């Protein structure tokens, strides 16, 4: 900053007249602290300004002085002294206040950080729980849908239930098929069948006109109704064999597990 240019603007005269805004005054005061030449110039201006104001003085009435000093005398001086803190006391107060504030802030920060951490882990746990609940709900819902669909088949009089009993190969096995001859829909329901090795699968056959027709492969662990292939009309017998995984075109008769006749004789 060029001090002479700054002075030439007349800002110090305005300062001495008390005409600057709070902001402008703060700026001048900052510059005064920085540039001794500015302070020197201000002192001369203040002196001239003060003299002018002295010459333009108007004396107030004498009562003002009397009233003023009555009030001053009434002021509790001793107390005033202790109320008005010395700059040292101010420092001590400020320091104490700062330390208290810092301690309090740290304590609060720590407390809230801890609370935040606990909340965070609680939230994670709740989110996981919520997810599990949703999955469980979905599973239950799907099972319910399946049971509802199954019961529609079982309750439907258009379906005929054919019980297949275990052969000498598997006397304990028991399963049923639900067959709608008109729509050719075919379902299988397992009551009891032993589990097979990975390489093998059960295969359902329908005997039409004495010939076995493939009705699809299935696992023994399946629950509820298993939808099987549509087959033609005129089935006399349903039978199950054990075949290599994927099934075969014609049944391996030696592995026959169960059989049931459609014709109720």
């Amino acid at each position, binding site marked *: 900053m060029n001090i002479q240019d700054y*002075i*030439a*603007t*007349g*800002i110090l*005269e*305005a*300062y*001495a*007249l*008390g*005409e600057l805004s709070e902001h402008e005054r703060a700026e001048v*005061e900052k510059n*005064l*602290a920085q540039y001794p030449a500015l*302070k020197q110039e*201000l*002192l*001369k*201006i*203040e*002196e*001239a*300004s*003060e*003299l*002018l*104001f*002295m*010459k*333009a*003085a*108007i*004396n*107030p*009435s004498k*009562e*003002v*002085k009397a*009233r*003023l*000093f009555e*009030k*001053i*005398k009434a*002021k509790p*001086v001793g107390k*005033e*002294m202790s109320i*008005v803190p010395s*700059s040292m006391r101010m420092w001590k107060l400020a320091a104490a206040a700062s330390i208290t504030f810092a301690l309090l802030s740290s304590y609060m920060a720590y407390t809230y950080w801890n609370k935040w951490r606990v909340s965070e882990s609680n939230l994670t746990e709740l989110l996981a729980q919520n997810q599990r609940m949703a999955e469980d709900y979905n599973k239950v819902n799907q099972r319910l849908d399946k049971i509802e669909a199954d019961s529609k088949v079982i309750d439907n009089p258009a379906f005929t239930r054919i019980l297949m009993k275990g052969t000498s190969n598997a006397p304990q096995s028991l399963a049923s098929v639900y067959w709608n001859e008109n729509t050719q829909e075919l379902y299988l329901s397992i009551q009891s069948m032993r589990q097979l090795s990975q390489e093998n699968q059960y295969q359902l056959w329908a005997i039409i006109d004495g010939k076995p027709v493939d009705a699809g492969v299935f696992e023994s662990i399946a629950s509820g109704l298993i939808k099987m292939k549509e087959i033609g009309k005129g089935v006399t017998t349903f039978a199950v064999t054990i075949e290599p995984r994927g099934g075969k075109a014609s049944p391996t008769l030696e592995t026959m597990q169960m059989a049931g006749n459609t014709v109720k004789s």
Partner: protein
Amino acid sequence: MIEGLKSKRQSALEYLYDHYSGSLYGIIFRIVRQEDIAEEILQDLFLKIWDKIDNYDASKGKLFTWMLNIARNQAIDKTRSKEMNKGKKTDDIDYLVNKIDNQGSAELQIDGIGLKEVLMELSEDQRFIVNQLYLKGYTQSEVAEEFGIPLGTVKTRLRAAMIELRTILKIK
């Protein structure tokens, strides 16, 4: 004297009052233009000086400038709060100038030269500005506005006048 004020010596305040009450009252009166209100403000001003002298910072200027700022602010606050009529300014000026002239001869001849004699040594332009600001209580912006002089010109003219006045008043 400032030390005396800081240690709450009444004699210091009394000295201050005797020395400055006239100039400060003049400043206040030019703003509020009513004697009773101006006297009330003057009293509050000295009570404030008594209570707040610790706030005075000599690095920011002379004590008079500090007091003047408080006086001006209190007076301006008062005119705002009372919604006082500022339009009467010109009517009161003659009365005001008379009052100064009367007192000037009696009590305020500190250095033996009256205000009029001092101002007569300035150029007409400069005298006009100083007159408006110091005698009639206008602000720089008011002078600029009412007399159609750019504010920058008001400021530089005042600066020139103040430099001139230093010589006249023998300030070194």
